């Protein structure tokens, strides 16, 4: 069964059409990349899937359920998490608290009485994630004080905290050095074992390395679909996109 299916997904802002009739098909444990020039509608597509924006037309099915038009926090509870291109963490909380806040979201927030600090299960899960993203030794640092690269990892860690089924990653390697990029790619491959991932990326090497499948967007529409080899060979894609992009 497909984890995520969108049908004729369209989003208009007044006269501007950002996304037009986009069909996405994502299988379980698949890593799919969405590529395309700037302004192609990739970010908007993410926002439609995670509920930040409501579609003008079209439907979205997730895990067998129609989630079109649901509120953002409800969609998150269904198991979709997003890691953002512009680091979107909680600056004045510690690294540990950032991740725990995410982990905690699956429990009731109206627990006004027990001490957050001694909550075994939550803390355990947060610890696990922090170790996975390599930030366990920085757990007491304020998120705002972390290096950029570490913040990007924290970004992913927070998204993981909600124990998602589908992880949307918006340019996770944005702004990272080649070494950091390799590190992040390794991380993504590791976490993708247990979940499905949709990736938006500009770095072609990352895309080719990681993806099982690639969807290419141009001016809001899907112009090509296939595995990395097929996309690399596709004439339209080469013309429109691959030519002018960093390798």
């Amino acid at each position, binding site marked *: 069964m497909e984890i995520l299916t969108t049908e004729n997904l369209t989003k208009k802002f007044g006269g501007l059409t950002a996304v037009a009739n986009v069909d996405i098909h994502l299988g379980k444990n698949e890593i799919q990349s969405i590529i395309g020039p700037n302004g192609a509608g990739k970010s908007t597509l993410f926002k439609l899937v995670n509920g930040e924006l409501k579609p003008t037309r079209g439907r979205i099915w997730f895990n067998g359920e129609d989630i079109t038009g649901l509120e953002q926090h409800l969609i998150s509870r269904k198991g979709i998490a997003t890691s953002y291109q512009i680091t979107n963490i909680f600056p004045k909380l510690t690294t540990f608290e950032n991740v725990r806040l995410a982990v*905690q979201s699956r429990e009731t*927030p*109206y*627990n006004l009485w027990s001490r957050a600090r001694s909550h075994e299960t939550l803390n355990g899960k947060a610890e696990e994630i922090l170790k996975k993203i390599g930030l366990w030794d920085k757990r007491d640092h304020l998120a705002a004080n972390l290096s950029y690269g570490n913040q990007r990892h924290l970004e992913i860690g927070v998204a993981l905290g909600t124990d998602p089924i589908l992880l949307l990653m918006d340019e996770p390697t944005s702004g990272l050095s080649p070494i950091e990029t390799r590190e992040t790619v390794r991380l993504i491959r590791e976490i993708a074992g247990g979940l499905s991932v949709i990736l938006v990326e500009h770095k072609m090497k990352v895309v080719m390395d990681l993806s099982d499948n690639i969807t290419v967007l141009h001016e809001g529409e899907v112009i090509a679909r296939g595995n990395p080899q097929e996309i690399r060979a596709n004439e339209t894609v080469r013309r429109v996109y691959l030519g002018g992009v960093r390798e």
Partner: protein
Amino acid sequence: MKNLFQWISDHSVLMIILVLALIPFILPYEALATQMIIWGLLTLGYNILYGYTGLLSFGHAAYFGLGAYATGIVLIRTNCSLLAGIGAGVLVSCIGATVIGFFCLRRRGIYFALLTMAFAQMLYFTASIWESLTGGEPGLRNIPRPPLEIPGLVSINIYKPLRFYFFVWACVVVSLLILNRILESPFGKVLQGIRENEKRAKALGYNTNRIKWLSFILSGAFSGLAGALHTLYIHFVGLEQLYWETSGKILLMTLLGGPGTFFGPFIGAGVFLYLEDMISGFTRYWMIVLGPIFILCVLFFPQGIWGKVRDLADKNRGIPLERG
């Protein structure tokens, strides 16, 4: 030195309880101590909403006033006990916060702040018109201060200033313990998450609007308690309790002391009232001093006195002080 500071921060509630127990003996007169502790509680209540949840309200006099009026009216009209009177105050301010919070949270950001002020102003006008209930412009005078009674067990007269002070102190201790518990709970963590990045909190699955509403109500409850205690303190309640200048005072105290901490509200209230007391000795226009101080705080010391102390004591902000 840093370890001492760390310890003080970690045991902030304990420290505050201790210091507050001592100030009536340190300050020149008890009335000042009583004012400080009551306004400190009010600012603490406000801090839940502003310092911890990040919602700027310009109309918190509303809940202070609601608590003050409800307690006053109930004590004058009925022969109820002390605790019932206070309970009425807290209850009414809770209800007020629930209703007003609902409306104000329909909008975000800057509109929220304006709306809170508008509703406070509305309450002010309502109180001035509804003379039969509130006493209108002159207010309600000679409000009794019944003894603290637990039927069958004990009856403590709290008429004398020092006794009353410690009764208020006891209320504040209980409030501090409850608040501390709440802010350390998962709920409290979410509040801070909302302050730091509401959009992300929502994206993580939190129903942020409802959580903000609850924070609003909690804040209103403690502010109402302060209002109830204030009425008992001065045996009077009037329109000033609902006036925008009162909302302004709360803001000044919050910023002066430092938002988002436990020490901040009490330090802010203390410094503010002390300054007011001192300056009023020269001129009744003390706001001309406090206004510019506020401006300076906003421009250069938004973290307030306690925040600044914290920053100075701990240069390596990589290791944060979790509370205090």
